[in-house]
């Protein structure tokens, strides 16, 4: 009897992962793509996206939900890249330079984001989402109007023909795949960007170490219960801001890693989908708004991107239209986020109700009501 119940609970806990796995596996055959191709794509995308998704861990840990404001970090990284391209710095040094330049910007952005989110406790996710749009407007203003006019840009090749404002697409020739190719390992038909993987592994180690540190434990307490943490002497607001700041800086680096793999920068759009993909990935990997682990990240990236690779072609074969495949994968992407949020909200409400009921039941001397 209890075996069946825990099986049911297993399913609701991992509903999202299971649904995703089923849909992905079902789409592999119709897509007509070879397994080798899919696996190679997976290896590339793991390198490309994992850093960004890892950036989401700390805010979840600190109870702030899904950090849609990570876009701010992505924009900071892009500004760093723009200057690296401007001064024609290539190779890994270009990436390092972009990261170093983006760091103070993302520190500031993270601080702003954290402060704003602290003023919207209980509504962090919506606020983060809107804040990303707001800062996006400021970013557009800076990059489209100030750069080249007020902010000196020495390389005319990256400016628009009117003389100021950065071009729509920047060719990242100089730094293209410089991190990936630094230590490329060829294993049969596969090519693994080992340097990128090592950077990601370093980040994982950092996160594991951080969780054990005092600050990390503080965050965990804040995430668990803000009031109790406050009473234990933890500076709740400050801890939350630190979580967001770290997340933003990581997003900055992650976006640079992402873009070096892509090879070009869509100056005004590249960061639009960043938070969507990262959030979808971590949720697909089994994380929830309150709980996320590193395996969630890796599994999530693999699952989400494998579906994204196969579904357009599967849609083409099944429905005769690649557009349907694209819409389908957006639908699944948004649907997964929605489903995870719903399941999480539903479950947490049921838990609070169950707790309330059991208190009432115990007081009345009766057994707590069933599931």
């Amino acid at each position: 009897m209890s075996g069946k119940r825990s099986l049911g609970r297993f399913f609701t806990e991992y509903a999202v992962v299971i649904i995703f796995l089923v849909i992905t596996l079902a789409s592999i055959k119709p897509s007509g793509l070879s397994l080798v191709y899919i696996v190679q794509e997976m290896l590339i995308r793991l390198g490309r996206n994992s850093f960004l998704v890892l950036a989401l861990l700390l805010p979840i840990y600190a109870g702030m939900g899904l950090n849609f404001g990570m876009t701010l970090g992505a924009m900071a990284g892009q500004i760093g890249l723009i200057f690296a391209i401007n001064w024609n710095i290539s190779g890994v040094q270009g990436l390092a330079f972009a990261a170093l330049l983006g760091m103070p910007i993302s520190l500031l952005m993270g601080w702003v984001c954290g402060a704003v989110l602290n003023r919207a406790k209980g509504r962090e996710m919506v606020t983060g989402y809107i804040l990303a749009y707001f800062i996006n407007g400021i970013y557009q203003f800076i990059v489209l109007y100030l750069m080249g006019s007020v902010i000196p840009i020495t390389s005319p090749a990256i400016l628009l023909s009117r003389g100021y404002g950065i071009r729509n697409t920047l060719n990242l020739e100089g730094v293209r795949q410089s991190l990936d190719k630094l230590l490329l390992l060829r294993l049969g038909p596969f090519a693994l960007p080992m340097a990128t993987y090592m950077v990601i592994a370093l980040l994982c180690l950092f996160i594991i170490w951080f969780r054990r540190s005092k600050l990390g434990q503080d965050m965990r307490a804040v995430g668990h219960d803000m009031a109790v943490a406050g009473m234990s002497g933890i500076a709740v607001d400050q801890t939350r801001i630190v979580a967001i700041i770290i997340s933003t800086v990581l997003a900055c680096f992650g976006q640079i890693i992402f873009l070096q793999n892509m090879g070009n920068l869509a100056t005004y759009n590249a960061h639009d989908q960043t938070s969507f993909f990262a959030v979808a990935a971590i949720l697909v990997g089994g994380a929830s708004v309150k709980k996320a682990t590193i395996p969630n990240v890796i599994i999530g990236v693999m699952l989400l991107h494998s579906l994204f690779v196969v579904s357009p072609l599967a849609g083409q074969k099944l429905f005769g239209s690649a557009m349907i495949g694209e819409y389908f994968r957006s639908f699944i992407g948004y649907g997964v986020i929605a489903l995870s949020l719903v399941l999480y909200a539903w479950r947490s409400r049921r838990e609070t109700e169950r707790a309330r009921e059991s208190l009432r039941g115990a007081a009345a001397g009766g057994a707590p009501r069933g599931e």
Partner: protein
Amino acid sequence: MRRRRLLIRVALLAVYVGLATLAFVTGKAHTVLIDNKDTEQAEGIDGVLVEVNGGEQLELYRGDRDKVAVQGQGLRVRVELLDGTATEKRLRLPVGQDMLLLSIPGLLAGSETALEPFVPVNVAPPPEEEEPVTSDGLSGEPLPETLEGEPPPLAP
């Protein structure tokens, strides 16, 4: 205690600036034009093989010009003449310049001005582009249509 914190902060700042400068200087890419043309001091050589920083070997006849992309400050040029004699020279590239011109005849003659900055005269203007579209659709105006017959790109 406070002084120590200040010291750490200053040290971190120094490390930051140091790293940034290092990345800048070692990462800066230059385009070096390799010239085999007649200059004031020396004549162009009939046939010569040039190798820069251990890269691809370039074949230059008299009057030829080729280009090479270089990262960092140091330039190691290996010149091999038709008769088999080879010379190797090391040069330093100035940080500020993106494009430089290296005259091989000048280099072999030991001229001081063999390497000089190059300012391109005719830069082909980048292809015309439309103004970037920064709309987030909030205005209620239709987003610019993609090609006729295609649903608009996926937002948001």
